[in-house]
């Protein structure tokens, strides 16, 4: 699974720390998600999409191996 959190965060000009505070997790967790070391729960995914003002499909997508 791939994600575009880093890109969407850059568009919104939000730092990892700010995004972490807005969704209620640690900065390290946002870093782990961005680096594909952790796949967030549906709840966190929905929170991220709300804060970054985009759909979940825009944030997360299946890569070639998973599809």
């Amino acid at each position, binding site marked *: 699974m791939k994600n575009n959190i880093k890109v969407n965060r850059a568009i919104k000009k939000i730092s990892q720390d700010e995004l972490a505070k807005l969704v*209620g997790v*640690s900065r*390290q*967790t946002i*870093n*782990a998600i961005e680096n594909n070391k*952790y796949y*967030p*729960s549906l*709840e966190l995914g929905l929170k991220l999409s709300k804060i970054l003002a985009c759909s979940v499909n825009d944030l997360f997508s299946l890569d070639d191996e998973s599809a």
Partner: protein
Amino acid sequence: MNNHLLSNRWLIPSGILFYSATLVGILLMTSVITTETINIEVSVPNLFHLEDPLLGHNQSWIKNNWLDEILCLLLCISGLIHGFSAESDEDEYANFLRFQALKWSMVINYTLLTVVSLLIYGFAFWQVILISMFSVLVTFIVWFRISMIQHRRK
């Protein structure tokens, strides 16, 4: 999301008790200290007073040194509280790391127990069983602590 963890205020006191009890347990197992060093002898009811050629506890009431019982209670209770108390920065990734630590401690301990059960026999195996009673909890906590330290450094 309810993750059924205890409050963060339990983390440090339970940790102090757990690591202290683990240290005393290791010292006791390696005979650095013995049950004679700290003797807390109490009369206790012996519910299963079957023929016991090894320990000779055939009476309903026996005199027993409570040091190992106290250590066992301390290790189990403080270990469970320490392992399942919320971190100061608890979130779903910390919960994921906790689950990973629990998974790997189970895999490692039961793999070792399987191997050891084929290689160690007799009274020495009793020692192995004694260690394996607590090693799942100890491995889980140590693994999780290391994971959290690494996670916070990133």
